[in-house]
Each structure stands twice: as structure tokens, then as C-alpha cells.
């Protein structure tokens, strides 16, 4: 008896889907919190449908055939979604390996007596599905990378807030390393805010900067110069003792810059230069 594997798989489409779904649902680590049985069914049907209807005697031997573009597109979509939803690589991989398992199970059931054909068909399906698995991993990783890139952008933004501490006084707590990209964001935000609020003093607080090397120092000096060009004064606060000693040994000259040990002392200095006074209210006790 002559077998036509693509035809066979098309005829048995329903069985493949059922086998595959059973495989997925019996998977120990099934993430019922992330995906519903309904979604699994829908994704599985779509993929099997696209795969078997595009499969023929020629392309079953050719993993690079353009006929599978549709399959790859569906598969990529599923892995990207799963990456974003927080599935692990194992969970995502189990999805496509489950399909391979189902296809091989079916071949075994259907081609029992012809071992030679079964062997050939198994090899072909293996090669095809392995190639699909690679696509799954590639897109899964791409999906995770997108998540990381987005988070990096978010961190850059949220980590450089400009705070209006007082009328005319801005404060910028800097946390983490002040690299060139961060400096650009800090400087833009600061200058923008100086214009908008008409502030005359900006305090750059570096309590959260782990190390001040010559690069960071240069960025700080640039930011101070830019602030001065806008007609405002810039104070650097939060210089911890170990940072002060390191700066001195490194040989960085910050003598042209107003520096303070703490944000509180920078604020006090700002009040003085704005001729503001913070006083304790005298409570006069009534004499009975």
C-alpha cells in the first residue's frame, strides 16, 4: 500500500488537534493562570490547519519552503505573545514539541505495518518541526528583548525626575550611573523645567550614584555649565565621604562648583541665597 503522508495528515486533522490538545492539557506545568483552555484550542486549531493544508509531497522535504510562511507567522505570533505574557522558554517550547509528539503518535497509529515508510515519514516530520521549534525560540527571545528594551527606556525616564522643592528651587535626585545617555535626559529635563518654572537654583543630588569617575564628573560639570548658561545656579549635593576622597585622588577639580554633603544643606544654602528664612514658630503660652 502506497502512503501519501500530507493527504493522510489532512484527513486526520481532527485527530491531530485532539492528540495535541490532550498533550498540552496533561502537561504538568500548564499555566492556567496565563492562558485558558479555549485559547489553547483556538491557537492549536489555527496552527494545525495552516500546517496540514499547506503540506504536500514536495515541501515535506524542504524546511525552507515558502509554503510554510503562514505557519511560521502564526507560530511567531504565538511565541511573541507568550514571551510578553511571561511564559518560560520551557513552557513555550512544550507547545511546539507537543505538536511534534502528536504528529508522530498519529503516524505510528496509521502506518503500523510499513516500518520503512514510518521511518521516512518520522524523519521528515522531525526535520520540519525542529525547524519550526527554532523559529519559536528565536521569536520568543526577540519578544523578551523587546520587553527588556522597553523597561530600559522606562527606567531612564523614571529615574530622572525633576522635583520642584520650593518656588524657584528645583531638585534632581540622580540614581545609578550617569552615562552619556542619562546625562542627555537629565540635562534636557532640567533645562526645560528651569524655563517652565523660572527657577534660579537647581540641586543635583548624587547620593544614589555609586561612583564618580572622570566620565561622570565631566557629565556633572557639563550639566552645571548648561544650567549657568540658562541664568540659574547649580548645586551638587549628596557627596558621600568616600566619593569626596576618591574625587580628590582622581584629581577632579570641582572647586568652581558649589557642592554640599547633603540635600538638606543644599536646600539651606538655596534659602539663604534667595533670602528666605525658615523659622521655628514661637508659641507664646498665655499666662493665666
Amino acid at each position, binding site marked *: 500500500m502506497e502512503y501519501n503522508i500530507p493527504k493522510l495528515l489532512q484527513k486526520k486533522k481532527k485527530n491531530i488537534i485532539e492528540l495535541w490538545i490532550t498533550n498540552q492539557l496533561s502537561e504538568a506545568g500548564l499555566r492556567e493562570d496565563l492562558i485558558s483552555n479555549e485559547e489553547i484550542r483556538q491557537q492549536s486549531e489555527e496552527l494545525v490547519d495552516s500546517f496540514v493544508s499547506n503540506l504536500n509531497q514536495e515541501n515535506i522535504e524542504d524546511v525552507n519552503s515558502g509554503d510554510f510562511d503562514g505557519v511560521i507567522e502564526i507560530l511567531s505570533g504565538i511565541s511573541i505573545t507568550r514571551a510578553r505574557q511571561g511564559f518560560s522558554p520551557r513552557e513555550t517550547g512544550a507547545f511546539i514539541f507537543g505538536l511534534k509528539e502528536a504528529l508522530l503518535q498519529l503516524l505510528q497509529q496509521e502506518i503500523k505495518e510499513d516500518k520503512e515508510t514510518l521511518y521516512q515519514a518520522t524523519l521528515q516530520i522531525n526535520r520540519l518541526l525542529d525547524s519550526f521549534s527554532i523559529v519559536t525560540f528565536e521569536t520568543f527571545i526577540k519578544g523578551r528583548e523587546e520587553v527588556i528594551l522597553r523597561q530600559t527606556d522606562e527606567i531612564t525616564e523614571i529615574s530622572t525626575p525633576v522635583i520642584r522643592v520650593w518656588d524657584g528651587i528645583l531638585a534632581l535626585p540622580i540614581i545609578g*550611573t550617569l*552615562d*552619556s545617555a542619562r546625562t542627555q535626559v537629565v540635562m534636557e529635563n532640567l533645562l526645560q523645567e528651569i524655563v517652565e518654572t523660572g527657577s534660579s537654583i537647581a540641586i543635583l543630588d548624587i547620593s544614589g550614584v*555609586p*561612583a*564618580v*569617575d*572622570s*566620565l561622570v*564628573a*565631566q557629565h556633572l560639570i557639563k550639566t552645571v555649565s548648561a544650567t549657568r548658561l540658562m541664568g540659574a545656579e547649580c548645586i551638587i549635593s549628596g557627596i558621600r*565621604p*568616600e*566619593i569626596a*576622597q*576618591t574625587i580628590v*585622588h*582622581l*584629581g*577632579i577639580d570641582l572647586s568652581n562648583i558649589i557642592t554640599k554633603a547633603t540635600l538638606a544643606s543644599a536646600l539651606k544654602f538655596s534659602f539663604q541665597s534667595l533670602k528666605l528664612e525658615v523659622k521655628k514658630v514661637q508659641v507664646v503660652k498665655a499666662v493665666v
Partner: protein
Amino acid sequence: MTTWTMIITLSKDVMRIVADQDVVPFRNRVKECAVKIKMGLVNQTKLITAASELGRNMLKYASGGETLIEIVTRGRDNGVRLTFKDKGPGIADLSLAMKDGYSTGKSLGLGLPGAKRLVNEFDIKSEPGKGTTVVVIKWANG
């Protein structure tokens, strides 16, 4: 009387610096080693600042290179030894490069002389056209 004691390596770690993003993880690794040998906060900060300077030089002038992070011991002293090895253009005049304020990169020119002041032992070798190797040691109580 001078006592000569051998430096023994207790742990060894290789890290490559080929992009800006590599500097912070490298610095964190150096810090971990410094913490492990109970180096004080001031010396820790000096060491990671020197590490940052030398790592960035490698990036800027030699488009990257390899670092070796070692915990070493000599007699009763424990320390961190860092080796920066690149295959960049090298430095023709070392004594000039070690001068405060000398820079071919329109920078402050403090990296090399500053790093030398921040550590206990500093050794630089360079061959034009071949590359540059800098080795520094910071002792925990140095």
C-alpha cells in the same frame, strides 16, 4: 629588612568589555570581590573608580578588551588585582599619557594618573600597534 612574599591568586574571573553596557556589570563584579575580602568602603570606592577609568579607556581607545579580576593574597594581606588587556593602537609615550591633563580624546586626561593614585600597585605596558596592558592591585587595608 625587606621581606619578599609571593602573591598568590585565590580566585580568578575573566570579563570582556566591548560595549558601554559592559562597564557597570564589570564594576559590580569588582565590588563583589572587594566586599568578599572585607575591603573598607573608601578603598572599595577608590578601586571601582580606578576600574571604571581603565575599563573606559580600553573601550574608548582600543574598542574594548579583556579584564581579569582576581582575589590575591600576599602574606597577611588580601587584595583585588585587575588586569586590563587590549589589542588597540597602544600608547607611544607612556610618561606623557601618565601626566595629569594629557588627553588625545578631548577629555580631562585624569584616567591613567588618577587610577594610579587610587590603587596601591600600578603597572602599565604598551607597545604601539600591539596593545596595552594595565595591572593594578588594591589591598584591603591599603
